[in-house]
């Protein structure tokens, strides 16, 4: 069962491309949207929730187009990072109000159930203006869950939470994913995604850089050979020094510089600097020659 389907979706603002030709399908379970800040994760979530029109491509949620279709929110629960809530309401009043807007048969009971799920029963009669950021986040999750949606979208749900709240939210999302709900959350923190989601979609620079099972992607990144183009003050000397290293499996002298095949990405990049210094070689340029995963590496290594 495919809940969310994107086909060649792009979104641009004037000349700036925010999302570039992304195709993906997201089914039941927890899916993490991973990428650095500004990569386009939020733009993607806004489009899935119908709060932004794709400039090009098709996007459906539960078979319907979300744009200009408020009815889609019967199937979607949405927790955004930046939106605020009416501070003058108590948690219970707020979630009940949202339940009423969803026209649920028994808003108060639905609100109680949702508040229990996020473990906010103790604080539900306090005004939201007195809540901590983590509590606010949880009451927003309760409001998003109150109509028992098939799809739950969360933008950076762990921001501002303390470690205990973070673990609790992870358990909650995990449990809901196992129940067959479609949970999509965005994060720029690798550990969160690693801990929580079986499936990840890596977004870098508006493009879908990698997609699939987290462990498979990680394996792919660390174990496959990588090709680098190195330019230095003495390519020939550097080549002979590099070939003696276990992390390097091949060196080729080309007119554009030295083409190096590394079996171990991490070891190679760590050793290169020391090696050039020891040999008195000046390093001019180091380019990953593998375009498709370059950006993913850059990001994952940085984090």
């Amino acid at each position, binding site marked *: 069962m495919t*809940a969310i389907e994107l086909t060649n979706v792009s979104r641009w*603002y004037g000349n*700036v491309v*925010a*999302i570039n030709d992304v195709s993906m399908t997201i089914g*039941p379970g927890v899916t993490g949207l991973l990428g650095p800040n*500004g*990569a*386009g*994760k*939020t733009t*993607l979530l*806004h489009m899935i929730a119908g*709060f*932004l*029109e794709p400039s090009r491509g098709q996007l459906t949620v*539960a*078979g319907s187009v979300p744009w200009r279709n*408020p*009815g*889609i*929110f*019967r*199937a*979607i*629960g949405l927790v*955004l990072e930046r*939106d*605020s*809530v*009416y501070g*003058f309401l108590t948690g219970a009043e707020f979630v009940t*109000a*949202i339940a009423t*807007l*969803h*026209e*649920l*048969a*028994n808003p108060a009971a*639905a609100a109680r159930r949702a508040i*229990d*799920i996020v*473990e906010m029963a103790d604080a539900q009669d306090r005004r939201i203006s007195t809540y901590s950021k983590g509590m606010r986040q949880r009451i927003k999750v309760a*409001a*998003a869950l109150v*109509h*028992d*949606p*098939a799809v739950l979208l969360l933008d950076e749900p762990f921001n501002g939470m303390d470690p205990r709240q973070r673990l*609790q939210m992870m*358990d*909650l999302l*995990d*449990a809901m994913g*196992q*129940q*067959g*709900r479609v949970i999509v959350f965005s994060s720029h923190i690798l550990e969160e995604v690693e801990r929580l989601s079986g499936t990840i979609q890596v977004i870098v620079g*508006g493009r879908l850089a990698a997609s699939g099972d987290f462990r498979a992607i990680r394996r792919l990144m660390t174990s496959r050979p990588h090709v680098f183009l190195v330019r230095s003050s003495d390519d020939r000397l550097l080549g002979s020094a590099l070939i003696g290293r276990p992390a390097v499996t091949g060196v080729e002298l080309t007119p554009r510089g030295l083409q190096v095949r590394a079996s171990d990405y991490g070891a190679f990049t760590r050793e290169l600097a020391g090696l050039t210094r020891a040999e008195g070689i000046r390093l001019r340029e180091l380019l990953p020659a593998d375009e498709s995963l370059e950006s993913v590496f850059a990001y994952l290594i940085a984090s």
Partner: protein
Amino acid sequence: MTHRASQAISRPPAARLAGSGQRAGRSRSGVVNRVILRLTIRATMGRKRAWIFAIAPVILVCVSALLKLTARSPVWPPEFLGVFGFTVVLPLTALIIGTSVLGAEIDDGTLVQVLATPVRRLSVVLSKFIAAAALTVAFGAVPLYLAGAIATGPASGLALGLLAGAAAAAVVYNALFVLLSVVTSRAIVFGLLYLLVWEGLLGSLVAGVRLLSVDQYALGIANSLARTGRLHAHLTLPTAIGMSVAVTCIALALAARRLASFSLKGDVV
């Protein structure tokens, strides 16, 4: 936690994608959504800056009482209340309220919580509009009536005319300002420009502009009861009412249309 969460969400997944089963039949709420109406009134009254709109009406009533006690000329009520009431107090009250019911919630992001539900966008607009119009009547039209009642008596044509005209203006202004706040994030600026340049400057110079000036609708309606040349009304009652209805309906329809395409900025740019 995990255990509790699993218990609480134990419905089979197959039932879910079709939408929740616990929905209460067909739409119970009409076009106006009472929850949004209530929340909007509470939010507007709770904002500190909102209390600015209480200042002008207080001045209006106080000055009227003062004039009543001291003024020798009998012509001040329509002159003062018509000019100060309809070109200052009422439009400014409507501007502050009308741009805050929707505009302030778009700015601070609370509106997204409401929009992330299946409520029709026309309902959202109408509920916000009615809240704004009701508050403007309370803080603009009622004080104007009180001032008129102080000046010429509670059942006088002037007092009742001011009330009717001000209530009509509250409706039309707020429809316009609600539309403005959906269209632009600088609704207050454009609203002020409309009031000062269009109604204030052009309205006094160019006769045709008056047909598209809300203050003229209000004066036309007020004058049908007050019947005094000193209100400087230029439109007849049928024209004033017809234009009020037309402008209100068009503004609200456009606002709902625009809100249906409500977009959030992403993280890029």
